[in-house]
């Protein structure tokens, strides 16, 4: 039988990030039921204990910790050198990486380092009886789907966030093993972190990993009216996005822009408020599972891509929606 499936667990503020937990579930799916193929979760950095405790309840066969403060900053060069060395040692054939900003930066480098094939943006995955992995990935901004077959024995797989459910916690505890820090010689000259600026979205989740996104467009008429969306987003635990018209007008910084020249999002629920639905915007959100559009213009193109639509005055609809969501959620 082939070696273990390695699943990289990324952390933020000491906790494992949700996309990494989703990857853990995928690991079990492609390794086979417990007892057939091993799933090994791997964590790098210092102060790993809280994350390890959480990961140990999620059905992996082993949790490996590589404790070294050099991993506390993400350098693709350093992480890929370490992970490739460990994968070599464990005789792994598959490494799963979440589609976070760091994860997306890691896959190509790790695959080149480890001599592996690589596929990213994976929305579905299956293993044929002969062991061949086959994945589905949206391409052309979700306007087409590719089914990619992996022909190489080794592969690094990058997963799309929000495409897979994270495993449910169980009572059985995964054994935890401290792994020696691999030799990290001959690293290239690296950059230095000089500061961190928290996103202006404040307390909400990040746009690219949120399970719900509420986006505003020109229909909001002015930056001050974004507070309507902030209330709605707060009631849903959603991140806030914006159309290009909004960021070009300076109502919101460019980091809020969803679309071809902005961020691509694929949440469970995307609510477009006062957004007409130019293709520029649509390509950035079309892979969302469910799309809701609220717009005063019944002919707005956004209603062609949305699953549910409300034609009406957003200044009345949005507050009513916020109230209703608070009511059903009991707050």
């Amino acid at each position, binding site marked *: 039988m082939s070696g273990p499936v390695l699943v990289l667990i990324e952390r933020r503020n000491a906790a494992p990030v949700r996309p990494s937990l989703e990857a853990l579930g995928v690991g079990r799916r492609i390794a086979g039921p417990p007892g057939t193929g091993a799933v090994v979760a791997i964590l790098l950095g210092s102060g790993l204990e809280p994350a390890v405790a959480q990961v140990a309840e999620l059905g992996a066969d082993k949790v490996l910790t590589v404790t070294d403060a050099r991993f506390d900053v993400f350098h693709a060069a350093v992480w890929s050198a370490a992970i490739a060395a460990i994968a070599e040692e464990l005789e792994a054939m598959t490494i799963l990486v979440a589609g976070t900003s760091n994860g997306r930066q890691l896959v190509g480098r790790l695959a080149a380092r480890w001599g592996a094939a690589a596929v990213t943006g994976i929305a579905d995955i299956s293993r044929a009886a002969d062991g061949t992995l086959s994945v589905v990935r949206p391409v052309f901004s979700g306007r087409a789907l*590719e089914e990619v077959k992996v022909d190489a024995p080794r592969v690094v797989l990058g997963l799309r966030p929000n495409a897979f459910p994270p495993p449910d916690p169980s009572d059985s505890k995964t054994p935890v093993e401290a792994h020696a820090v691999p030799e990290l010689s001959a690293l290239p000259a690296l950059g230095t972190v000089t500061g961190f600026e928290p996103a202006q979205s404040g307390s909400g989740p990040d746009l690219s990993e949120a399970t719900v996104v509420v986006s505003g467009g020109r229909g909001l008429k002015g930056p001050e009216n974004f507070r309507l969306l902030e209330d709605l987003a707060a009631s849903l635990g959603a991140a806030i996005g914006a159309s290009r018209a909004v960021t070009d007008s300076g109502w919101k910084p460019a980091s809020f822009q969803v679309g071809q020249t902005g961020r691509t999002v694929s949440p*469970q629920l995307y609510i477009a408020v006062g957004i007409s639905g130019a293709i520029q915007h649509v390509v950035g959100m079309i892979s969302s599972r*469910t799309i809701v559009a609220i717009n005063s213009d019944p002919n707005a193109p956004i209603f062609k891509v949305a699953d549910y639509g409300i034609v009406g005055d957003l200044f009345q609809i949005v507050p009513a929606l916020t109230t209703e969501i608070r009511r059903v959620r009991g707050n």
Partner: protein
Amino acid sequence: MELLVLIKPVPDPETRLRPNATGTGLDTDGVKWVLTGYDESAVEQALLLKEAIPGSKVRAIAFGTAPRTEEILRSALALGCDAATWVERAADASVDPMRAAEALSVACKRTPFDLIVVGKQALDDEAGLVGPAVAERLGVADYGPVVDLRWDAAASKFTFARAIEGGSERMSAPTPLVVCLQQAWNDPRTAKLQNVLKARRIAIDKVALADLPAEIKSAPPGTHVGAFRLPPPRTGAKMVEYKTPEEAAQKLVQLLREEAKVLP
């Protein structure tokens, strides 16, 4: 400062996508191939740096088949790049993004560089593998997704921010370096007609098939596209009928909970 920018011809974003006869790729009949998306932004970024750093030169490098690859290199030259390298690809060769990165690194190794700028992903396959894989093959650091890239002449370092979850991480890094750009310009520069004409006369350097390692030419890459299809067409929104905003909100929330099952 020697700046390299890696680009790729992609179908015009307005292209109506159709699977080819075998259902394993895009039907490229009549497709217009262009320099666009993050690749176009990467060129814009390289040219902005060239303007900011005296004595800089920008070389655009692309891997692909003729004539589309030559055309986008000419577009890059018309925008202001100083030189271009075409890495030849056999029309019948099976290639995946890791293989493309291998071919591009051959060209990068032939020319001294301080910085390689690459878009965080191409607009067609959205793989995002090339920048980091090229960096590994060249043995230099790579960072991404990068915004606000500047040259700090006093420190002899590039400064930038990584647009990551929860905020932006400010960094500085020495050369040589690969940056994968997140930042996109909504209105990048367009080429003047006289520069388009001038670009036609600039000689494009070529990395010929014969110069590439044997496996790039013949061995199958690690992955292949088994099927290419269009998602089921969206049938248009189910419209919520209502008399009051409250009723609209109630009906929508009910649909989201009971039908779409996206709200607890």
